[in-house]
Every structure is written in C-alpha cells, then in structure tokens.
C-alpha cells in the first residue's frame, strides 16, 4: 500500500423497485403492475476514509467580509490530497475483489470526486490540545481563552479516524457537561 491511514467499508444489498423492460409500452395496467413490484437484486459498498491532518487545512477569519452584525466571516479552507486519492483507488479495487470473491459481478465503481464538506463526519477547526498556541480546547473541551465555552462536536477533533464518530461526540459532551456542572458548583465558572 502506498498511502497511510485506513478506511471502513459499508455494504448492503437491496431489490430495486420495478421491472425494467425497454420494449414494453409506458402506458396502462401492465406498465403499472411492472412498476410496483420489486425488481432485480443489487449490492453496494462505500467507504469512510481517514484523511491525514495537515496545517494547510485551516479556518481563518475573512479579511474583508463581515456578517450582518459586523463580525468577520469564517473562511474554511480544506481539500483532499494525494494520500486520499490513493486510498480511494485502493478501496475501489479492494471492494471489487471482495464482491468478486463472494461470487458477485461488479457493474460499476464510482469516484464521485465530491469535495470535502458535502458528506458527513467532517472534523477539526477548534482542536483540542495542551498548548494554547497550537490548540483552542483543553482536556475538558473548554476553550483555553474562555472557560465557560465548551465545544464537543467534530470541530474538537485533532485527527479523524475512519469510524462513524457521533457516539464519541455524545460521550465527549456528557463528559464536558459533567465537568461544567462540577466547576459551576465550585464557582469556577
């Protein structure tokens, strides 16, 4: 393998709806009956890939654009790189091999070249870390510079992994909320 990081594969099978027949008329009772029943079986597989963190992926304040309250807009600058391309290629090949060794026939492999941000599980932007010079959140997901603000969604992540992260965010949130309440009771917040 010529890339780093890993991916998770998701797979499933289903029946399409309707029985295709290019010769038959597209009018009438037979047509309707053909359309309403289950059609052929198909299977699919897709990946969730780990993108390696790099400094060039960043968020910054706009130098000239502001919102309706005069606050600078946020510029989010992220992109995939060579490592991601190689991983996608590897997945398409590995996935095809998996289907073929299970006796399937691969009809098509798709790299939709979708830019980051159009899917799910995006992470980063308000990263956790020990040093306020290179991070924004402490071990409790608290902003270093403003102790009564907690960020516990994907923005707090410093690396991505390839697993679905929502339950992790729920755990981080419960943990941060618990800490916030105990700090509040001590009147530290």
């Amino acid at each position, binding site marked *: 393998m010529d890339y780093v990081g890993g991916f998770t594969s998701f797979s499933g099978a289903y029946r399409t709806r309707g029985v295709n027949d290019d010769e038959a008329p597209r009018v009438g009772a037979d047509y*309707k009956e053909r359309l309403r029943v289950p*059609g052929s079986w198909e299977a699919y597989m897709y990946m969730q890939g780990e993108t390696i963190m790099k400094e060039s992926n960043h968020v910054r304040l706009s130098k000239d654009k502001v919102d309706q309250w005069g606050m600078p807009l946020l510029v989010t600058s992220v992109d995939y790189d060579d490592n991601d391309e190689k991983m996608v290629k590897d997945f398409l090949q590995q996935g095809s091999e998996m289907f073929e060794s299970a006796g399937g026939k691969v009809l098509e492999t798709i790299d939709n070249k979708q830019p980051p941000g159009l899917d799910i599980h995006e992470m980063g932007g308000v990263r956790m870390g020990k040093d306020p010079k290179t991070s924004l959140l402490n071990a409790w997901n608290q902003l270093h510079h403003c102790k009564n603000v907690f960020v516990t969604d994907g923005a707090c992540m410093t690396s991505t992994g390839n697993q679905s992260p929502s339950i992790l965010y729920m755990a981080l949130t419960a943990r941060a909320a618990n800490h916030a309440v105990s700090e509040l009771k001590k009147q530290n917040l």
Partner: protein
Amino acid sequence: MNRREALTATAALMGSAIIGSQAFLSGCSRSETTVEGFNDDVLALLDEVGETILPATASSPGAKASKIGEFMKIIVTDCYSPGEQKTFFEGISVIQEDAKKKYDIPFIKLTDSQKVDTMLFFDQEAQKVSDRKGDQVHFFTMLNQLTVWGFFSSEPGATQALRYVPIPGRYEGCIPYKEGDGAWVY
C-alpha cells in the same frame, strides 16, 4: 414519504434524469410563482392522462386518485425551466387537438381504450425522440415521468400500490415474498 428519495427511485426506474429534478433538489424557486394555463380544464385533462398512464388495477387505485394533475402543476410551475414549460403546454394542446381530429370530442370524454391508444401513440413518438441524442424532450416523457414520480410518492400510490411501513422497527434479514406483492416504500 420522502419525495427526494422517491425522485432517486424514479430516476433509476426511468434510466434517465427526471426533468425538473435539479430545481427540485436545490430548492430554488422561480421568479414567477404562477404559470398561466393550469385552469380546471387542464387539470382535469392531466388527471385523465395520468390515469391512462397508471390506471386503477386490482392492486390499487390509479394516478387520478392521487390528484396527479395538481402534482404536475406544482412541479411544472416551480421546477421546470421556461423552455420545458413551453414544451409541456404545447403537448397539452397537441393532446386536445389530436382527440378533436381523431374522435371529434374532447380527450377527457374518450373511452378508456381510446385514451390508451392516444397515449400509446405519443409514447412511441417519445421513444423515437429519446433515441436521438441531443433532441428536445418529448412532452409525453414529461407526462410519464411526472405521473410515475407523483403517483408512487402519493398516499394511494405509496400505501396501496406499494407497501408502506412508517416505522420499520427491528431489522428482519429474511421475510417471505409473495409474487405480486408491492415493493416497500423507502
């Protein structure tokens, strides 16, 4: 019933993009919110056209029960480009003139088999057009797409022609299928 997913299912079924789907999915609204031409007579005609394409059968009601004319009005008004709208309305005129010429009565007054023959004729015309790449879409293709999309995502279509379970509950990996049972709505 999720009309976006119905759209994907319909496109897969038709083997081509559904006209109006881009505008529908991006939620753009057109600058004119009403289109002249959807009067009661036209809606009645569209109901009959829809019913001819997808008629009531033993399994379920037809497109008329799903108020297909009303659905077509919304999609054509909100999601069709001006050029596409023009083709659509020209098609309605063609249908009306054809009935007058062949049978000397309005389309909605034709017998069921006369209506089927009329629509089959336009279907064949549309098939010839779609075989030639780059040609303008035929109005029958529009009516066909709208009827299939609108009917199978409507209440009678989804609950009677197809099978609808709003909360599927636990996963069952294997269930029996009886020939002729409808597909599940998703």
